[in-house]
């Protein structure tokens, strides 16, 4: 057994059409990643949330579970007519959804991965975004629940054979979110109905305290809700989206960010200084602050603490994504999707911009579990060309890039951030870097002035592209070469384009005059 001090190695999963492979993570020896697991056929792959197991769906409805430490297959399940499958957060259970061939057949099955035995089955007619996975687990698997019409059923995750332990009646519930860790709270969303406003209510998962919601917030103008629970379950941030904007400011509808704490200390809108949609909101890994990117472009970014007070204002820019570093202090603001791909790396505790760079056309972006690297990937099917993987250092300098013909998925193997050492030394040393040694990572240097670190680490933005001139334009070099190539070589030499043109015009006029004169002379005669 390795000692506690030793950090686990990073791994990257790369999935191409029909097969996937796992690379040993950075730092790469010889600037090339080594393959830990060679190409294995698959149709889809997914890690469990804690990174201990890997779910691989093979063609013909075969689901394999791999142990991530040894990268060997533990178990394989035959599931005919498989539509979807998912692992529980700790990797203990596998849920599969099959297309039901007969109305009576129970088409959602919960299997125990270790033993391979199905522990629970139920019937579900269809699958939608809010109803899959059918049984939702908290991150530590202490609670499991399922949403049905008007009720929420709770199970005991340790022993599914008990069946439904208790039921919670919430009339009209449309979507739920369990708190992550500890999993003792449940947020339920009830949409608008017949004049009654939509509401989000927090219930306790403990059976005895379930008569009344712990906290509740009602509002109108909302059609769906996304929940973001805090790490220590202090409160839930939810983004209420509506498809139609009643204030007539946006075609895409409106979004509002609300915050509901379990103890009732804050319930209501998070006061945002700029009007416009909420593009992204993320809790930090420690759970004591969250960052929001909001407003019409250029969007504003702000960090709030968990009591909803403003901590840091990160200015404005073309950003719509936030990625917190798993080690907590760094933050990447990025503009992906329909934005050009600017990325800005901030150190939040010192409120300093570490670096900024660009990663065009990225689809996914993720920090490495140890916080040293940031990987962006351009994947099919959203983009069919320029599929690539790019890995940056935490200050924005590019470390590694690889192009693919077609890339479907690229992600880090999840690991708990506590297993890795702090990156304080790394950030300090970045401050002391000089311009000619961008990658040297000396330890123990004092933090230098921000200006030098900024200039050292900012990778030059690509040069502004020259204006496009069609080939037939007079000033195009090709045309010039054709017209004046000979002339330029012979005598004119340093003449500018305009000068050449004027010269040509003068010569033409001279010829014309000469022709006219001679013509006139002939006519006269």
């Amino acid at each position: 057994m390795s000692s506690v001090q030793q950090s686990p190695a990073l791994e990257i999963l790369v999935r191409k059409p029909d097969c996937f492979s796992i690379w040993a993570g950075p730092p790469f020896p010889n600037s090339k990643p080594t393959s830990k697991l060679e190409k294995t056929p698959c149709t889809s792959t997914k890690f469990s949330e804690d990174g201990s197991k890997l779910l691989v769906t093979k063609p013909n409805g075969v689901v394999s579970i791999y142990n991530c430490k040894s990268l060997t297959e533990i178990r394989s399940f035959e599931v005919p007519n498989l539509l979807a499958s998912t692992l529980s957060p700790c990797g203990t259970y596998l849920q599969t959804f099959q297309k039901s061939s007969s109305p009576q057949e129970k088409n959602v099955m919960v299997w125990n991965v270790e033993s391979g035995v199905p522990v629970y089955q139920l019937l579900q007619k269809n699958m939608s975004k809010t109803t899959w996975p059918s049984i939702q687990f908290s991150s530590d698997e202490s609670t499991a629940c399922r949403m049905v019409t008007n009720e929420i059923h709770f199970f005991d995750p340790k022993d599914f054979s008990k069946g439904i332990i208790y039921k919670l009646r919430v009339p009209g519930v449309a979507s739920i979110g369990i708190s992550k860790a500890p999993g003792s709270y449940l947020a339920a969303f009830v949409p608008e109905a017949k004049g009654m406003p939509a509401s989000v209510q927090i219930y306790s998962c403990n059976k005895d305290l379930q008569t009344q919601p712990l906290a509740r917030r009602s509002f109108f103008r909302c059609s769906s809700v996304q929940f973001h629970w805090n790490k220590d379950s202090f409160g839930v941030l939810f983004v209420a989206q509506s498809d139609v904007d009643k204030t007539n400011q946006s075609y895409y509808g409106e979004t509002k960010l609300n915050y509901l704490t379990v103890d009732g200390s804050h319930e209501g809108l998070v006061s945002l200084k700029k009007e416009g949609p909420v593009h992204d909101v993320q809790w930090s890994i420690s759970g004591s602050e969250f960052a929001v990117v909001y407003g019409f472009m250029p969007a504003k970014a702000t960090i709030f603490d968990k009591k909803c007070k403003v901590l840091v204002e990160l200015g404005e820019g073309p950003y719509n994504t936030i990625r917190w570093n798993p080690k907590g202090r760094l933050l990447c603001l990025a503009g992906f999707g329909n934005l050009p791909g600017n990325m800005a790396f901030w150190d939040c505790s010192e409120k300093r911009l570490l670096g900024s760079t660009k990663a065009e056309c990225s689809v996914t972006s993720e920090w490495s579990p140890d916080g040293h690297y940031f990987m962006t990937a351009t994947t099919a099917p959203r983009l069919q060309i320029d599929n690539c993987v790019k890995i940056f250092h935490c200050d924005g300098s590019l470390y590694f890039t690889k192009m693919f013909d077609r890339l479907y998925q690229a992600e880090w193997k999840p690991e708990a951030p506590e297993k890795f050492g702090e990156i304080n030394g790394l950030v300090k040393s970045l401050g002391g870097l000089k311009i000619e040694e961008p990658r040297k990572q000396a330890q123990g240097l004092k933090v230098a002035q921000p200006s030098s670190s900024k200039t050292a680490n900012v990778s030059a933005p690509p040069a502004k592209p020259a204006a496009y001139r069609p080939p037939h334009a007079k000033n195009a070099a090709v045309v010039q070469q054709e017209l004046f190539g000979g002339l330029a070589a012979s005598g004119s030499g340093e003449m500018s384009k305009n000068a050449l043109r004027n010269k040509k015009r003068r010569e033409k006029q001279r010829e014309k005059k000469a022709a006219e004169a001679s013509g006139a002379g002939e006519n006269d005669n």
Partner: protein
Amino acid sequence: MGRHLRSQGVRMRRSVLMLSLSLLVSMAYVASVSCGRVQYALSRIRNAARELLTLDEKNPKRIFEGEALLRRMKRYGLLDEGQDKLDYVLALTVENFLSRRLQTIVFKRGMAKSIHHARVLIRQRHIRVGRQLVNVPSFMVRVESENHIGFSLTSPFGGGGPGRVKRKNQKAAAKKAAGGDGDEEDEE
């Protein structure tokens, strides 16, 4: 108060006519009377600011009253944190005032389906600011109370019991289920 308003009515209507067409259209939910009321308040504030600006910079009256005026404007959300000069007071418009009414704020915060719905909700005693139930659509909301606007605890929207109509329907339904046809016809 009524007589005072009526005599002012002529003056107000004339000044309301001076309002830009766009403002009237966007604030069409606000009666021209309260538009005029806001204009009157705004013109008094502007006069005060203008008069203070003619005084010397170090004049104690200018300092004292200027600070008080700026503090009031900031408290009601008409001026931002960065705007701390009397000149900004002169740049205030009727729209700034109208957007601080409880009716607009209830709508903007998503607590009502439309701006007219907001007025109805306020008037029908569903909205509270802090702990106090507010029944007045033209309530000027202070910046610190803005986050404490919610449905009142006794309102059916905010967790209280069912409202009058629903209770009546429930009673009628219960009576119908228990009593039978004869009793039901007597109930109105």
